[in-house]
């Protein structure tokens, strides 16, 4: 374990004194979830940190050469390679430590969107997790390829309207259910896997610390509202990330040493999925007459996932 002796307490008072490592002036859209998530992640870490970033909104909008919003070492390679690039950086770090050329404790984080993580970067991610590099991969998941114009991804929710599965006479948005990547990462038996949401910053930052304190690879999926792709209000990002959790579309949970823990269980306050879907234009057609079955199906999928998550928690209780 490598927990530093003087950890900054996760209180608003203490955190206001921490430098912001992703500065303002970047070109992310107003209301985008990603920079909020990145700031929370970087604020949680006291050690020096190195970032590998997959191609995507976060990468193109925070590093328009010759400018950068990053106040920490940062590297971008190609779309599919963030986990591999981070593996290489972390390997070099371990080698330099072994040679005695580096003394400091450092942390390694890879950021990718759902396109760069669930789809084209999946192979590199799986490889890095299996090899066991000491790095934390964080996916900011906005559920489509927003950077190239809102095309579907394997993280896109069932029924969502995207430019490559558009609502028309043949289909009503995405016909498949989304890939559950957090569970797939847990199935790699990684040291730590978790889901978080920017509305619950304390939970997110605690998870970052837990992930980095483990002696192995870690994965975090973070829901990241995108008003362009979700067709929602720019000031609704935090609300929508909260509703994603309250409806159990995006449960907050963690998997460590085979133990599944749900960090927030709304119990009888669990909201119907329509509360999350309604403010989003990409689901507007689901509320049209004739699509009641699709709406019911969406709720069914959420309920299935939530129930099986509760069972996993129950089964892994010792």
């Amino acid at each position, binding site marked *: 374990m490598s927990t530093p002796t003087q950890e900054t307490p996760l209180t608003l008072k203490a955190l206001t004194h921490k430098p912001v490592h992703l500065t303002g002036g970047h070109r992310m859209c107003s209301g985008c979830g990603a920079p909020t998530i990145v700031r929370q992640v970087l604020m949680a870490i006291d050690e020096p940190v190195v970032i590998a970033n997959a*191609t995507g909104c976060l990468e193109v909008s925070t590093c328009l050469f010759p400018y950068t919003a990053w106040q920490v070492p940062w590297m*971008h390679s*190609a*779309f*599919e390679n963030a986990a591999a690039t981070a593996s290489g950086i972390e390997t070099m770090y371990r080698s330099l430590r072994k040679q005695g050329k580096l003394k400091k404790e450092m942390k390694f984080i890879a950021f990718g969107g759902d396109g760069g993580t*669930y*789809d*084209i970067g*999946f192979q590199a991610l799986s490889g890095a997790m299996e090899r066991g590099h000491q790095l934390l991969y964080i996916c900011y998941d906005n559920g489509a*390829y927003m950077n*190239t*114009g809102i*095309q*579907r991804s*394997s993280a896109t929710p069932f029924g969502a309207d995207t*430019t*490559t*599965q*558009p609502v*028309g006479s*043949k*289909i009503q948005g995405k016909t498949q259910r989304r890939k559950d990547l957090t569970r797939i990462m847990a199935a790699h038996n990684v040291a730590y896997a978790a889901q978080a949401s920017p509305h619950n910053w304390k939970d997110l930052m605690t998870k970052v610390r837990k992930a980095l304190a483990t002696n192995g690879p870690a994965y975090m999926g973070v829901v990241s509202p995108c008003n362009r792709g979700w067709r929602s209000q720019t000031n609704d990002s935090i609300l929508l990330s909260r509703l994603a959790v309250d409806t159990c579309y995006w449960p907050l949970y963690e998997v460590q040493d085979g133990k599944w823990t749900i960090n927030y269980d709304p119990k009888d306050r669990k909201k119907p999925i329509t509360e999350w879907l309604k403010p989003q234009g990409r689901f507007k057609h689901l509320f049209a007459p004739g699509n009641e079955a699709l709406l019911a199906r969406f709720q069914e999928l959420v309920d299935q996932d939530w129930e099986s998550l509760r069972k996993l928690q129950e089964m892994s209780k010792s």
Partner: protein
Amino acid sequence: MPKVLITGNEALAEAAVRAGCRRYFGYPITPQNEIPEFMARRLPEIGGTFIQAESELAAINMVYGAAAVGERAMTSSSSPGISLMQEALSFMAASELPAVIVNMQRGGPGLGNISPSQADYFQAVKGGGHGDYKLLVYAPSTIQEIVDLTVLAFDKADEYRNPVMILGDGVLGQMMEPVELPDITPKTVDKPWALTGAKGRPGKVIRSLFMLPGEDGALERQNYKMKAKYDRMCEHEVLCEMVQTDDAEIVLVAFGTSARIAKTAVHLARVEGIKAGLIRPITLFPFPEKIIAEIAGRAERFLVVEMNLGQMVEDVRLAVNGKAPVAFYGRPGGAVLAVDDILSAIHNCVHGKEPEKIYTGSE
């Protein structure tokens, strides 16, 4: 026939549909996203298949699979995505499978930018993947030509059993021009090699691996067979536009977007009394080397204009073979050429003491 005002990307996609393409596999990348987005809407209307792959690797290998059953299949991408497809393109050329691959080039190398570029010339015409193979490469310079060449590309892919590339760029993909979309009956080609189910007949094999016991020399023979095909392309498929080359003293050579700009520069030079002309290769492989060689016998000098650091200029020099000086003007990294700069390059060539010196523009 009425004309429609349409972007190059959409025109290309609609032309592919009219040419009988019913299987499209793609992956988003700027500046060609209009192609997959158009296909996502259009193909389901007519019983076709649109699949968005999880990567360019997957998209091109889906094309590989669809082509193997004899379907007219296509994918499109832009420079970094085309780089990822090179392995499968080599496999498809070796397996002799027809398909159409579109590259709407952007600035490189690396992630580069999303501005138009012509820096993938080498990759397209020299066989971008491993091994001795070629793609038939078309370089349209107008939206109408995108339409016409897309239709031709599917026919030629089937005729030669070889992948065909349409090499455009961000300008051609994004800009709009009025075009005629032809009402055509797609050519149906007999494909006895296609894998259509072996019920009642012996199975067929499509392969690029030639190392089974007892077939010594098979791969060498396969390479010679492919070479014969490429020789036939050189004999029959060269397309080239010539503008005022008959009496030209200085002949510009340019393709695609830079040819449009060069054409204006040639006209302006003529107004000034400079006898300028333009050769515009429409096929980049096969390259119009005989035409260039013939003109080299009478023109005083050549000026090659490209949106890169000098790629096609090498093929022009091989064709000219020392008979006249060949100068180059170009800009890399997604910079679009300006007419005035090409005109300056013409002046430089005509009046300069060192006509072979590379003109680097006025940055």
